[in-house]
């Protein structure tokens, strides 16, 4: 039981309301929703379920076997021995990477929906929060697609199934942000997030990126606030993960904005208003002009210094993925929190990325690069 450390760190942290007696806070953490007192009654079954799913994640030995495969059918044969089971049994040979990816994703979605359907509040809304992120991606994907005159049904197929919402297809009608809001998003949970960037401007590439980042910023801030209010283990674990997510977005925005028309002021507006970098690091990021400066800023933060030191032969993205995996794995060391639900989805996504990477390397005969995936357990 990590009762002592986590609880007291929370009680003594500046985040807890100063006017509260510490024991009142303890009582709240225990009895309030997601608290220890009622956790097993409400969410114990689902937690156990997710821990079971986690046990099914591919192990190092599995990966060691997978990289030895010569054709995708071999992968199918090996995956059949893992928890994936016969998920490819009904696929005709020859297999394609896309089929494997799609089937893996189907499994993830099935698992998520299974948990979501049985969840009661507040876990239900927590899980909904997870799906909002995918909704944002879908919205952006659809708008971009329409802009390039793609067929709408083809685009829908490409959308992430966790981010489906009813009136999604009508996104293609919208020509500017206001229309987007008024016609479609007003009915979705994303509505409050978009209010920060309402304008009558026509949609173009630049706008879409700004919309995406504004939406994401608002989403992350909201999610963070929600977890903080929930308190307990959830706040601790999710706080750590979301802070990292916020920092990662801020850094990515900065790096990707070099050499574009995005002004520094506009850029600053896209940074989430929390995270390890917030506020000093963010303020400095807002003023940088090149990638080296970003590195310098990050070096001041111990977490990121460690992340970046061993990045000599890896891309920044991979380093971040690795750190994310580490944080998500840590979530499974705790109990009485919702962090593991989020962490499981992210770990499973990473696993799918790994499988797809290996499958791609195999099908394109690029065996030299096959080991560049990020093992989980």
């Amino acid at each position, binding site marked *: 039981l990590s009762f002592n450390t986590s609880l007291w760190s929370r009680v003594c942290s500046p985040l807890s309301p100063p006017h509260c007696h510490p024991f009142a806070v303890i009582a709240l953490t225990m009895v309030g929703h997601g608290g220890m007192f009622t956790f097993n009654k409400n969410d114990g079954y689902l937690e156990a379920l997710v821990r079971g799913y986690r046990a099914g994640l591919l192990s190092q030995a599995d990966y060691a076997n997978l990289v030895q495969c010569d054709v995708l059918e071999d*992968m199918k044969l*090996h995956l059949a021995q893992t928890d994936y089971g016969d998920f490819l049994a009904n696929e005709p040979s020859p297999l394609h990477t896309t089929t494997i990816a799609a089937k893996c994703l189907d499994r993830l979605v099935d698992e998520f929906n299974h948990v979501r359907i049985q969840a009661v509040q507040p876990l239900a809304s927590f899980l909904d929060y997870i799906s909002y992120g995918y909704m944002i991606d879908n919205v952006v994907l659809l708008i971009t697609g329409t802009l390039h005159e793609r067929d709408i049904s083809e685009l829908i197929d490409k959308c992430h199934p966790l981010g489906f919402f009813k009136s999604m297809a009508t996104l293609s*009608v919208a020509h500017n942000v206001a229309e987007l809001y008024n016609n*479609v998003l007003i009915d979705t949970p994303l509505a409050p997030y978009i209010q920060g960037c309402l304008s009558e401007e026509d949609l173009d590439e630049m706008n879409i990126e700004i919309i995406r980042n504004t939406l994401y910023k608002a989403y992350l801030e909201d999610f963070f606030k929600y977890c903080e209010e929930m308190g307990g283990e959830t706040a601790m674990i999710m706080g750590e993960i979301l802070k990292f997510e916020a920092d990662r977005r801020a850094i990515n925005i900065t790096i990707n904005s070099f050499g574009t028309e995005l002004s520094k002021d506009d850029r600053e507006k896209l940074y989430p208003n929390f995270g390890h970098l917030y506020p000093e690091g963010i303020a400095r990021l807002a003023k940088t002009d090149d990638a080296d400066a970003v590195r310098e800023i990050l070096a001041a933060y111990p977490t990121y210094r460690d992340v970046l030191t061993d990045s000599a032969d890896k891309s920044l993205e991979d380093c971040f993925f690795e750190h994310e995996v580490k944080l998500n794995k840590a979530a499974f060391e705790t109990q009485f929190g919702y962090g593991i639900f989020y962490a499981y989805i992210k770990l499973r996504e990473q696993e799918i990325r790994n499988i797809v990477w290996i499958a791609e390397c195999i099908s394109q005969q690029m065996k030299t690069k096959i080991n560049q995936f990020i093992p989980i357990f």
Partner: protein
Amino acid sequence: MGHLWRSEPMQLVQLFVQIEAAHDTVDELGNLGLIQFRDLNPDVNAFQRNFVNEVKRCDEMERKLRFFEAQVAQEPGVKRLLSSVSVDGAASSSSTTQSLDELEGRFDELEKELAQMNANQTMLNRNNNELVELQHVLTKDAVFFQEAYGNVGEPRRGEDARAPLLASGASSGVGGDMFGAAAGGVKLGFVTGVIARDKIPAFERVLWRATRGNLFMRQATVEQKLRDPVSGVEVEKNVFIIFFQGDRLQQKIKKICESFQANVYPSPDTTRERGELLNQVTHRLQDLEVVLTRSRENRKQVLASVAVHLQAWRTRVMKEKAIYHTMNMFNYDIGRKCLIAEGWCPKTATEEIQYALRRATQRSGALVPSILSVIRAVHEQPPTYNRTSKYTKAFQEIVNAYGIAHYREVNPAVLSIVTFPFLFGVMFGDVGHGFFLLIFSLILIIKEKQLGSQKLNEIIAMPFGGRYVLFLMSLFAIYAGFIYNEFFSLPMDIFGTTWHQPNSTSGNIPDLTRTYAFGIDPAWKGAPNELDFYNSFKMKMSIVFGILQMSVGIFLSFFNAMAMKRPHSVINMWLNVVPQIMFLWSIFGYMCFLIFYKWYIDWPHLPPPIPNPPFILPLIINMFLQPSTPPDPLMFPGQHTLHYFLLAVAGISLMLMLPVKLAVLKMLHNKEHNQVGHEKHHDDHHDHAGGVVHHQQDDFDDECLDVSHGDIEFSEVAIHQVIHTIEFVLGAISNTASYLRLWALSLAHSELSTVFWDRLVAGPVAGGSVPMIFVFWSVWFAGTFAVLLVMESLSAFLHALRLHWVEFQNKFYIGDGTRFAPFEYKTILNPEEQ
């Protein structure tokens, strides 16, 4: 009985099979089902084994078969054919002659044919749906327009749909130019189509938002359900028509329709044109119907031909897959072109296996015959194989559920066949209840053939599997019921009670010259001291049975010890079995003796009469706590001396079990250790000399019970022995007490049935109201059935199970074996059987 007493002697055999004959050999052995193959390549990945391509091919064929099956399942007429064929299996002979390649080719063709047919069918269906939808749109539109003009009140304008519907009264008065804006009316466009009904609310809302309310929409339900051509799900749909104004809106609305997957159909502007189109559509629909029926018939025929063979094909492919899986476990000697297999088989089966090998060699036409040689197993426990009949199987399963017996260990199932139902009967003793159980088990046994051939649900399958257990259980329940003299809790006066109601004149001593012939005298029932009597009797009986069964358990460990190698056999015999039996009998054996002795003696009529015979339990306790004080009164002369003797025996047995045995083990351990060191030295010497090393210790004798655990620390052995001894001594007391559950359950059973009878039958009968008797009798019967027959039998079963698993088996049962799982088609094809 012999083969049940200990598991079959096994041997490890090695097979050398020519690669050409391998497939047929494994096939023959699969039919035989007497060899459990060992995986000789445990470190090789599944996809790197020798015959992985064949396995993949089988996987692919299985996939195709599943596809066929799904297709067949969609055709109700053909599906019936499938189930009828699977039972008689007549078609299976035809396909076994076909080679795998032929089958694969056939499957390929069939799959392609079916896929093409499905594609055609889907296309035809889509066309059909479109036409049907268009038909509906046209008919409904006519109604819309009529209504619309009806509202405007100018039916003569029905010729043109683009009339200004929302025009003001002023504009509507102007007849001529309907299209021009000059008249003040606005040109209206319309879009019409069909949409899934559940999408309508969202559709309407989005439309309203996108046009800011500038539209007029009507809709009507389509009564006919349309089948989605791709997914095959029936969808309910609505026809809609949207009137709007302006081209930009038209674009927008069409886009929205598209995004909602609504099918938009062109509808002509005038009524006449619409009528013509409707006629055309109807004609085309009729033509299409003919084509559709024909293609459906065609598909049905193909599927019917598939369905006939499907079961046989599946069996064939599963067998092939199993063969290649097995062959993947073999070593492939590339130089000699042969496969090397290793596996366990019963010693008695060698000949059958030889025959099978010969048959396979002939079948495949291989030049070199397969060779079977027996090899020595080193430090590996062979699998445990108990041959069972349908009668003994359930009892063996009861034991196996606790743990599979160690190889060649004494099998507790032999005794369980009698003791298990007997202990159940002791707890469930009632003639009436036992009789119902007997009828139930007899029904299951008589219908054995019929029930065995079909798949049963879990509730029925459980008693069916244990039907012979149930049968014996019911017999012993009836027997115990006669002993307790209970028939639905009522006493039966069969032989005439020996008790006469004492009256004041003839004194109150009953007739003692005659005892009731069998069981307990019915007069005890309802007597004021009924419970005192029954409790004393049942309690003592439980203890006696318990001690008896535990002693038998210790004797079984004696048989186990005999089967061990020296010196283990000697150590176990004299330092384990003998002290255990000494300890148990010195205390609890003596107690049993006292029980019988107390029953035997007529205490009030002894020469010096003892009015109150001594209680046994305090006597035994005092024997331990105050050994120096003699029991008062003495039950027989020399009892006190006997106590000293028994205590000494118990003490000696404890000494033998712990310190002496430890010392002997230590000595043995040291000796072995020295020997090993010595041998190692010798081995080095031999190696230098280039000689062959022969290990005396690796000799494996399968007649022996080998329980040595290799080279382990002595401290572990010591701790294990201490725990074992403490467990036995404490267990002797607690297990004996545990047997009191026999009394407790039988008491509960009899009390419960008495209460049911008194309250629900005897009471209302005394009340005299006839309808109430009927009502209460049925309540009584329901209660008897649900509580006494179902729940009580379950609980008695569980307690009997516990007494066997814990109290009986912990005296001797090692139970760390592995079950013999031969490669056998029967289990592969029906995995539920085992």
